């Protein structure tokens, strides 16, 4: 399988274009989630590339691990951050956008032309030999002979990553901070605390502001309905005016 077949060429131009479009979309998309999705397109196409290039194991692992797991975690974070959170477009470094575009295109052109010149007349060699015992077996034999130390040392990397995630993300709760239902109930029924529910906004309320106390039936305000962190203040005319329903 030294020459490139027509089918492979067709697949290359389709998948390659898609991969590049995905990469561009990832850079240009305004919305962070869209950006991530474009990246998924690129990664998927890379996976297909590997499969076409007689590396099916690598291709599917790319899809399972990168697209399936890593990008998904990435999406998680983006979604939890919120859909409306868009970056501020004020540039802190003047002209960086232009510089980045020029440098990026220049770098791509450099690598592209260099590769084209270097590999224009090269044929694949050794592919059949590498896959002689099957693709998976070939990979396994490399991993467990030539690169066994790198393979084993990678576990140190994984342990570090796990420890790091724990350090940076896990807050250990002190024993006194752990409040189960029993302690909460005990607190609720302790003398001096009113165990019933706090008054709601009240059907007698005439404003929607959370800073205004709910009204009790006798017209007085229920102070307990206001969060203690809110400063007490007079409402403006507009705020105090009865709100109609939206038309």
């Amino acid at each position, binding site marked *: 399988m030294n020459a490139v077949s027509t089918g492979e060429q067709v697949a290359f131009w389709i998948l390659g274009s898609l991969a590049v479009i995905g990469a561009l979309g990832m850079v240009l998309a305004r919305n962070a989630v869209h950006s991530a999705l474009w990246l998924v397109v690129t990664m998927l196409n890379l996976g297909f590339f590997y499969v076409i290039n007689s590396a099916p194991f690598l291709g599917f692992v790319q899809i399972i691990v990168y697209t399936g797991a890593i990008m998904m975690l990435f999406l998680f974070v983006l979604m939890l951050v919120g859909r409306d959170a868009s970056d501020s477009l004020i540039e802190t470094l003047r002209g960086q956008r232009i510089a980045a575009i020029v440098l990026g295109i220049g770098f791509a052109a450099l690598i592209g032309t260099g*590769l084209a010149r*270097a*590999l224009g007349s090269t044929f694949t060699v050794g592919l059949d030999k590498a896959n002689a015992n099957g693709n998976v077996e070939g990979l396994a034999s490399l991993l467990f*002979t*030539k*690169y066994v130390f790198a393979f084993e040392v990678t576990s*140190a*990397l994984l342990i570090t990553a796990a420890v790091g995630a724990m350090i*940076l993300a896990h*807050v250990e709760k002190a024993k006194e901070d752990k409040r189960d239902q029993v302690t909460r109930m005990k607190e609720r029924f302790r003398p001096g605390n009113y165990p019933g529910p706090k008054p709601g906004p009240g059907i007698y309320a005439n404003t929607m502001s959370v800073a205004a106390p709910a009204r009790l039936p006798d017209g007085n305000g229920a102070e307990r309905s206001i969060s203690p962190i809110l400063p007490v203040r007079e409402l403006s005319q507009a705020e105090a005016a009865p709100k109609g329903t939206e038309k």
Partner: protein
Amino acid sequence: MEQLKLPPIDYGALLPMLILFGAACLGVLVEVVVPRRARNAVQLSLALLSVVASLVAVVLERGTRTITIGGAVAVDGPTLFLQGSILVLGGVSLMLIGERSIERGGVFVSQAAVTAGSQKDAQQAGGQPGATEVYPLSVFALGGMLLFVAANDLLTMFVALEVFSLPLYLLCALARRRRLLSQEAALKYFLLGSYASAFFLFGVAFIYGFAGGIQLSVVHEAVANPQRSQVLLYVGLGMVAIGLLFKAALAPFHVWTPDVYQGAPTPVTAFMAACTKVAAFGALLRVLYVAFEGVRWDFQPVLGGIAVLTMFVGAVLAVTQTDLKRLLAYSSIANAGYLMVGVLALNDEGLSSTMFYLVAYGFSVLAAFAIISLVRDPDGEATHLSKWAGIGRKSPLLAGIFTFILLAFAGIPLTSGFTSKFAVFGAAVEGGQTWLVIFGVITSMLLAFPYLRVVVLMWLSEPGESTPAVSIPGFLTSAVLGLGVLVTVALGVVPAPLIDLTREAAQFVR
């Protein structure tokens, strides 16, 4: 399907690394098993013990010259010397990391996940004992560094690069004081570092395309007898070099250094300044000397230009700094430039002098950062230059030591700074790189200015209201200080034993 056979493994040669990785894993388990009160002591002794054990293993293996475990690891003179120096410097840094008496709970935050500036953060800043995960992380980093200087193929080198970088990124984020700055430093380091790693990996792919293999010996053969277009070689070499130059902090890949040095907890900064430099230059030496020696005429001028740029950037920008940690960061950038001069000599003399320089500089810089960790005001370390005004009057001993270290950096005779610069420049002249030496001497004179400015500030100004107090160093910091000064003097006065050692070691196996 034929049975797979493990390649022959020389466990003795791998023992230093295996000890460290094992001890680090054990350290992670200690976090689970040992109660919180005893954890710091247990972790510190475990880490120090493992470093000592590993050092013993290195010394026992001193005669080994072999390539083992399927060609992935080369254990030869430079490997063993650099591993030894990384272990010694790492052990000393671990003592700084383990110092808990200067500040209540140590310099590391107790729970990094607590939002900086929140009420809970204020509570834990008060004196909750710092996180003890820093010890296993440091030991992992040390293990990665040992592998980095021994890696005989580019893939193993990449894995080692990541293994020692990842713990460093994490350690940077764990400062107790000025946490936002520390987290920012970690993020910057992480982003730029992964960018550099990506370059390295991309370059490895190119070199694989060129040579059909990534073992350094295979690359060497392909360079001598190219089968493919040389474009692949040059692009690949360039990208691999970018990855390595980033770790070694050479201009223009140095921009992370001042921010990270300033933001990271001071012991971690010291660790990075001493050990990462050794590891990065060790790998650079191996790649350039073993794999790419055949194209030396092509890369020498480019890397020479980078060395000159680095020396100038470091020296000129050091003049403008007002923060002591940033000043030392720029000084370390300039020193990377001098080291590069030694590397570019591309002869045995260059190899041995670079290794000598690395050890000498490592000890001085450890002592310098140890002193910085001692000068404190209520906000933590007082690193602003203005605060150091008149500190010589307040505590002459400390200011004296610091002056000595700064003079060593400046390259005054009878200090290690002088002998090491002399060795490096001598090697470069011998290697036909006299133009680099000229620039080196010029920048050395430039660089002496900021050091002398600090010295003048310390001794000739009156101490003011805001001049910070100098903490009494604990046993560990005192030991570090003593060792740093002692080695700086010793290598300045009687450098011969170490130089002989480096000369004996200066032969790569291929």
